[in-house]
């Protein structure tokens, strides 16, 4: 077994044992263990390791766990059990890059040390001196690991603790990110599958304009980032916009999407503020004029930084929110269960989600109902603008509800659109807290709300969204590593081993085969997706052929939409009156913006359901929910054995495969020839071998419950939960039962 850079790990017999439990004695009596090393990825280097380390099992308060070796590499922190692990091999949903005991360095959120029973957050200063007896790692994907360091040699313990703390917490340079060492040999599949449109070529943009019948102008002048390093390489602007160089790279209304009526959505960073106020206003006027010229001389603008929370608010709220899911033990869990709803509310996270969706609905109303051009602005134009514009497009354009469409949208608005992933996700552990914010996650959260409310409208599943949210913190993909297109290009060029000749190529996250085999990728698809009916295909032909799936409800079950499709020409509407609307706040009452779109939502709700038409979220209190799969998947206390959505999935898969089988039998019949058709229906490949789904838990396919005994989880401390203090509690059950029976 190859072990690069493994230092002093040869003699790891425990010499320092503080106390011994029966199992440990048994363990120590075993013959010298065979040295275990992680299977390293290409380019992965082992830094340090320690043995024996006790990994506590999270679902157990009795401080028991498994012994094994803890490693730190340039990619991850990994724990390898001394016992044979049988779980890993049988997993249906296995990530090829990291397993359940691996934590990619980027995925580490916080490390806590327990010193003399006191839990302390590990920061730079604490690392130097002592090492804690227990190390608790909170991950960005909400896993919690607890390692006991007291069984290993003091120097090893110190080394592993300092190593992990150093590599996970210290500020580092982008060059040290594993992606630049990773040299996975591209599999044949990895040859650039042009399914997801990356929007890194002028053709992609032209195609997109054609698809949406946009009447705008493609800008190629920034190919070498001469206009601005903060702008995409290629972008689209209203055709009425003139001189490009007078903007200092700011304040361009950048085209996002065109409605079939002709009006379009634009986003912009605010124009540079110069000494003279007049300049700013002039810029604004030019911008709005250009946007208005796009269609019927109408425009509405909205400054998102005025009406939505700031990125710092968002960061703070999420920090509070995620704490409710980083559960270290059962007692904590049941304690936090008591004030669950008010805790949730106090974090404000669901409210931020509601506000974003609400704002998106307002924009949709302008485009769909009023056929007005919309310009959304923001200081940088790459944070909340991305959230809102992406959401608007998902609500209005069914293409973005397909898997490939959605990925293309993320490329268009976020990756090519220069969202500062590196800073926002804090991949480099920079000390500057101002710029960190889970903006992209917020967007995924909003999409999840739409998915759970209108599941048949989406080709992808919530599992897909969860995996995507995890992948942000896997330092292998180029997708989420950079702050802008310019940043990406310059770093990639510099870091390429064959500098100048060909830039370094990291896989994009969309190459899912890097993480999952095709069987596991089945979980990304929603079996209930209602496929588009045929006759609208003509419109769709414009864009690149996309992966067509047969796995969906028979199209006959859904009536073709009777109303006009998207992107229909509306030449006659030009006769409408010209109008300009320039409102910084276009909706009347700022107190309850919800009320203004209420009517729009209600009239939409009364229309016949069309999964390929406009989609609006319900935003009333009970409708905005917690993304259970993402947040509760690692908490054993809430695993429903034999239940949860996996039960529905299995059943649906079964049904679909039967329908397919029957269809296949019919086809064979019809062709009345003895063809040995062995083309198993497509669905068969998609059918998952769940085994007995009765035994799977609701956290499937993520956490595998070790709770084989199938015991229920009995809550503790119930009485604390409910102090009914009024006199009713002490009242007799029967108002009329004072009849003495003694």
């Amino acid at each position, binding site marked *: 077994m190859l072990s690069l850079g493994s230092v002093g790990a040869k003699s790891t017999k425990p010499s320092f044992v503080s106390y011994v439990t029966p199992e440990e004695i048994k363990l120590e009596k075993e013959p010298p263990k065979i040295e275990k090393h992680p299977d390293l990825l290409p380019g992965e280097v082992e830094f340090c390791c320690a043995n024996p380390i006790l990994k506590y099992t999270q679902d157990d308060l009795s401080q028991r766990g498994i012994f094994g070796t803890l490693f730190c590499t340039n990619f991850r922190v990994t724990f390898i059990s001394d016992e044979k692990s049988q779980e890993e091999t049988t997993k249906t949903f296995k990530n090829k890059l990291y397993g359940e005991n691996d934590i990619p360095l980027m995925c580490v959120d916080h490390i806590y040390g327990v010193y003399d029973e006191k839990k302390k957050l590990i920061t730079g200063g604490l690392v130097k001196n002592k090492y804690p007896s227990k190390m608790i790692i909170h991950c960005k994907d909400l896993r919690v690991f607890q390692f006991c360091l007291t069984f290993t040699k003091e120097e090893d313990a110190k080394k592993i603790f300092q190593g992990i703390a150093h590599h996970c917490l210290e500020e580092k340079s982008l060059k040290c990110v594993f992606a630049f060492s990773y040299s996975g040999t591209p599999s044949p599949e990895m040859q650039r599958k042009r399914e997801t449109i990356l929007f890194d070529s002028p053709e992609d943009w032209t195609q997109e304009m054609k698809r949406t019948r946009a009447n705008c102008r493609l800008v190629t002048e920034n190919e070498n980032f001469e206009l601005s390093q903060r702008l995409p390489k290629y972008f689209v602007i209203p055709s009425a916009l003139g001189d490009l160089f007078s903007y200092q790279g700011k304040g361009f209304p950048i085209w996002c999407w065109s409605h079939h009526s002709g009006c379009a959505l634009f986003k912009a960073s605010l124009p540079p503020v110069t000494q003279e106020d007049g300049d700013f206003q002039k810029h604004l006027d030019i911008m709005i004029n250009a946007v208005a010229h796009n269609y019927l001389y109408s425009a509405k603008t909205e400054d998102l930084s005025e009406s939505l929370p700031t990125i710092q608010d968002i960061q703070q709220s999420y920090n509070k929110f995620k704490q409710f899911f980083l559960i270290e033990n059962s007692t904590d869990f049941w304690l936090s269960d008591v004030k669950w709803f008010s805790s949730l509310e106090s974090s404000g996270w669901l409210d931020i989600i509601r506000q974003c969706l609400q704002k998106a609905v307002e924009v949709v109303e302008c485009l769909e109902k009023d056929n007005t051009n919309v310009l959304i602005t923001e200081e940088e134009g790459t944070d909340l603008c991305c959230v809102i514009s992406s959401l608007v497009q998902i609500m209005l354009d069914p293409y973005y509800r397909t898997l490939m469409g959605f990925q293309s949208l993320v490329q268009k608005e976020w990756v090519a659109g220069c969202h500062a992933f590196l800073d926002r996700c804090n991949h480099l552990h920079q000390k500057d807290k101002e710029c960190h914010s889970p903006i992209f996650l917020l967007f995924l959260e909003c999409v999840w709300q739409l998915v759970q409310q209108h599941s048949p409208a989406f080709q992808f599943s919530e599992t897909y969204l969860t995996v995507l949210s995890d992948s942000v913190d896997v330092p292998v993909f180029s997708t989420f590593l950079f702050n802008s297109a310019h940043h990406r290009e310059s770093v990639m060029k510099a870091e390429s081993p064959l500098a100048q000749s060909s830039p370094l190529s990291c896989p994009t996250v969309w190459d899912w085969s890097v993480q999952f085999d095709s069987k596991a990728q089945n979980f990304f698809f929603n079996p209930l997706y209602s496929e588009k009916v045929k006759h609208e295909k003509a419109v769709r032909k414009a864009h690149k052929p996309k992966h067509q799936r047969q796995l969906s409800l028979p199209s006959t079950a859904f009536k073709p939409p009777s109303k006009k499709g998207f992107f229909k020409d509306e030449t006659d509407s030009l006769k409408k009156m010209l109008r300009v609307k320039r409102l910084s706040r276009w909706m009347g009452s700022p107190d309850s913006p919800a009320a203004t779109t209420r009517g729009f939502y209600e009239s939409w709700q009364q229309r016949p359901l069309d999964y390929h038409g406009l989609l609006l979220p319900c935003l009333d209190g009970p409708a905005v929910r*917690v993304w259970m799969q993402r947040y509760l998947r690692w908490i054993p*206390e809430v695993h429903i054995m034999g239940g949860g959505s996996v039960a529905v999935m299995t059943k649906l898969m079964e*049904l679909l495969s*039967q329908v397919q089988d029957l269809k296949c039998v019919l086809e064979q019949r019809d062709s009345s*020839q003895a063809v040995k058709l062995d083309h198993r229906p497509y669905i068969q490949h998609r059918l998952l071998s769940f085994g007995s789904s009765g035994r799977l838990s609701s956290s499937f396919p993520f956490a595998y419950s070790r709770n084989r005994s199938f015991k229920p989880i009995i809550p503790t401390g119930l009485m604390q939960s409910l102090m009914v203090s009024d006199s009713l509690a002490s009242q007799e059950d029967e108002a009329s039962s004072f009849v003495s029976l003694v």
Partner: protein
Amino acid sequence: TRSDRSSGTRVSDTELRYVFIVCVSTAKDVTYICPFIGPVRGSLTVTNYRLFFRCTDREPVFGLDLPLGVLSRVEKIGAATSRGDVSYGLVCKDMRNLRFVHKEPEDSLKKSVFEVLMKFAFPVSNNMSLFAFEYKQVFPENGWRVYDPLAEYKRQGLAKESWRITKVNDHYELCDSYPAALVVPVTITDEELRRVSSFRAKGRIPVLSWIHPESQAAVVRASQPMVGQNGRRCKEDEKLLQAIMDANAQSHKMFIFDARPSVNAAANKMKGGGYESEDAYQNAELVFLDIHNIHVMRESLRKLKEVVYPKIEDSHWLSNLESTHWLEHIKLILAGALRIADKVESGKTSVVVHCSDGWDRTPQLTSLALIMLDSHYRTIRGFQILLEKEWLSFGHRFQQRVGHGDKNHTDADRSPIFLQFIDCVWQMTRQFPAAFEFNEYFLITILDQLYSCLFGTFLCNSEQQRLKEEVPKHTVSLWSFVNSQLEEFVNPLYVHYPSHVLFPTVGIRHLQLWVTYYIRWNPRMRPQEPVHQCYKELLAKRAELQKRVEELQREAANRTASSSSERAGSPTRSITPVQTYV
């Protein structure tokens, strides 16, 4: 269009019509003050069974149609205005309030809507019979025959060497709120049972509810022992519990689950009640489940209604919901049932469950534990049997708790105990979407018919009363209606796993407010199309294909038989039929 399917909403012949205002767009219009869409003008009709309101000059047509049984209170709001408008509010048991305004009819000979409502909404208070006694719809099946206690105990596999069915309560002399058929250990004589009955509140002695088919661990229900302040004991009671323990060879221990908070159980000693002392009951462990009484539950639901109807405050929704404690009560009840089911299934121990009288919290706990333990109760018919047995035959006081036809809306005996149970069942169907044969509509139908008084099922307080009033003879059972259109109530995702125990998660993170029941009157919360529709379509598609395949196979078989040539194709791949109950 759901309401159209229910035969109950069609005006039947026996329904007497009291039409008041049928004119539209005149001064005599009735205005319904809708909290969601504002005032709506239309005509209001009240019959002896229901109230309906129609407004036809709106698009889409607006209508209200509700059985009078759902009204808990009818009151005039304010004095008549100068223009002669009368306004009154209707408070409903199903989480809504209605408000109507109309002109005082000039023809004073006509009865006012108010008077007629007061008369027909509260027939019991007016010495009239409930509408269920007038309703004469005939259904193909007789729902009164759904539950046969002897057949049910036989199905459970009652071991004759340990348990017997006693006739001691045949004439309800031992306990008037218990059923006639009771199952007790063979070693206890009827005479001993009589002694026990004087020691248990309301004579509700410990009797068998369910027995585990393998381990013989039993679920036994009772009321509190009349221990009192002096710690009274009853050796027959002690013997009975010992006999229950002995009937289960697997365990030498037993658990007594007292549903109440320990403080309340102790306070009951002052009134002669109390709980089993561990001195008197060797090998029995007493556990308190901390579930609150009917008054706390009533108050909780009242608060919930305030929070959800008519307006929902979005930004404080979660803390408002928390302040009602409704879901916390649900959690406690589910947690209690889970502990009972765990002891029986994993611990193989017998359990005794009681609260104070054993007719509120006890049926909640036993029936939920039974649903967890026995997959039969998760079928449509099995669930009917469960309700007939644990709730109706064992005397949950439906008449008192719901207040059928009684205008005394402040009655302290009213409490949403049964609603709470159905809510718990719903929570379980959420967590195990493929484990229940019935769908959400089934549960909502049960609740709607609980209040409607269209069927006799939920009338009266006990089996004895229902027999005395000849309810089965004069009324239609809800199950007649349900079982005549089963397809409406089937969960398309149902997979029948026999002997599959369900342990739900009771963490409040996994409990949800039942929006489609509690907030169903809010048009914004209505789903455009339930996802179930997709499942149904899929099933229909499969059935259609299956049929065609079968036809073709038959045809092919005929052809091969006639031509004796070798069979073309090899379409013998059999389609494994999955058990789906559609």
